[in-house]
């Protein structure tokens, strides 16, 4: 099934939840709104001719340029993306889903953007979403156990964000 036909099929089923797609890229992707993620995920996992039953990777990518002069030249507005790489074991096909989020919820700095958790669909997402929460600062609603996984529990800040500053000290250890 070609990319365009697949996109049309999802658009008919999910309507406005599918907010975009890119088929020219090396790894074509489909953009979905946060509210429609779980329903789309369930459809992709359970449809017999799709069967995307393995979630390979969940990554958080921070699109923000801290340098003001370079920020003026970027083709995108500051945002955060959560990228899901899916794989179908029976059909041996891969698919990329993207959720585009604002960097801060409702524009309030410090309030993490929210995405529903897909750990109910693919259990891998449990640890992957903990990592994206820990490092990129995305809050996954409905996650059974959302706490930091790589950084210590009492760490402040989300290191992979582009405007992250290393703390001056942590429990007496000098940071900068």
């Amino acid at each position, binding site marked *: 099934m070609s990319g365009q036909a697949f996109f049309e099929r999802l658009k008919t089923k999910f309507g406005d939840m599918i907010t975009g797609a890119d088929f020219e*890229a*090396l*790894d074509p992707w489909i953009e979905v709104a946060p509210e429609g993620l779980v329903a789309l995920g369930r459809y992709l996992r359970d449809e017999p001719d799709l069967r995307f*039953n*393995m*979630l*390979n*990777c969940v*990554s958080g*990518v*921070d*699109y923000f340029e801290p340098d003001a002069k370079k920020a003026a030249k*970027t083709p995108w507005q500051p945002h955060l993306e959560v*990228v899901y*790489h899916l794989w179908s*074991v029976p059909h*041996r096909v*891969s698919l*990329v889903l993207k959720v585009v989020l604002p960097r801060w919820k409702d524009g309030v700095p410090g309030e993490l953007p929210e995405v529903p958790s897909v750990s109910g669909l*693919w*259990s*891998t997402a*449990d*640890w*992957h979403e903990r*990592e994206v929460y820990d*490092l990129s600062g995305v809050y996954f609603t409905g996650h059974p156990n959302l706490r*930091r*996984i*790589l*950084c*210590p529990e009492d760490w402040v800040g989300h*290191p*992979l964000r582009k405007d992250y500053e290393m703390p001056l000290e942590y429990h007496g250890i000098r940071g900068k």
Partner: protein
Amino acid sequence: MATQLDDPRIIEFDVRTDEMLVNMGPQHPSTHGVLRLVLRTDGEIVSEVTPHIGYLHRCAEKIGENLTPKQWIPYTDRMDYLAGMNMNLGWALTVEKLMKLELPDKARHLRVIIAEMGRIASHLVGMGAYGLDLGTFSPFLYAFRERERILDLFELACGARLTYSYLTVGGATHDLPPGWLKKCEEFLRGLEPVIVEYHTLLTTNAIFVRRTAGIGLLTSDMAIDYGCTGPVLRGSGVDQDLRRDGEERYTEMYDGYAFEVIVERDGHYPKDHKYPPVPATAVLGDCWHRFYVRMLEVMQSIDLVRQAIDRYGTAKGSHAVPLKLNEKLPKGEVYLETEAPRGQMGFYVVSDGSPIPWRARARSSCFCNLSVTHEICRGCLIADVPAIVGSLDIVMGEIDR
């Protein structure tokens, strides 16, 4: 006194059962690195295992946003440090996919030789360390004796024994030195009969079978659900190997090579008439099968290296595509997974057109393999926990990056 204790109807009034919280702390000889397992046990039976990771987090991904891909190769070495060559290969292939680079034939066959030798070396550690976890020391030494020979070969090729940084974007940093292929063939000839010895040492050892057969059962559905890959997935009976099923950029490396995926089909493993039979107590998806898949993969890799040596001898081209130090990456993003010895290692690179990636993400196979521990360790004995964690063959460097 004696008669009172002999009568089972008399229960001592002050014996209470309580839950214990046992910490298999970050420093532990059997946890394959700095892994903290918190066990909730009812006496000797484990009711819950919670792994805590992050003790080896070295911020490799943040560093990847400040270095060119070639400069980031040493950081990939240190992820799965027991299979450094395969980590280098994964990242190099990902960046080459983004740059749409075509590799000369010689580089391709060189990569097969090196990657499969790396797989043998890694599985030898997996096997030896697994024996060590369960309490036997000799297989560890035997395995490392063979691994030392591979490390000597790698040292001849690139100068390093553990952190190679040999396979780089465009091919390899240096060509194989003269005489290397001959030494490699000698090594393979010496390795084959020794692997048969290891089967007697571990695979058919009655104590080993008692400790691993039927333990840590992982069903194929659960394995796919938790994203387990590599020998963990194949040990549960799922027929998936990226060298055959993966993306074209990776499978074309193995184009023309004859190999079979090591997985049980209809109750049989490939060529299993040559190897000891599966014990009666072993169930598909248990620790024993995961271990057996690794042992058979070593034999498969020996065969692949032999084929690659033949092809490398007659291949045309050079060992690498010359690239500028500050080569600009095309705009875009790619994700590529390769079959590393411990599972599918994925790299995701996002580029905005400058020589330095915007985001370099490593998807670790052991990260997902370890996440299934809390499911498969339920109800086992405390002594089974190292057996299960050892059978997943994890390396903390890869999990924490």
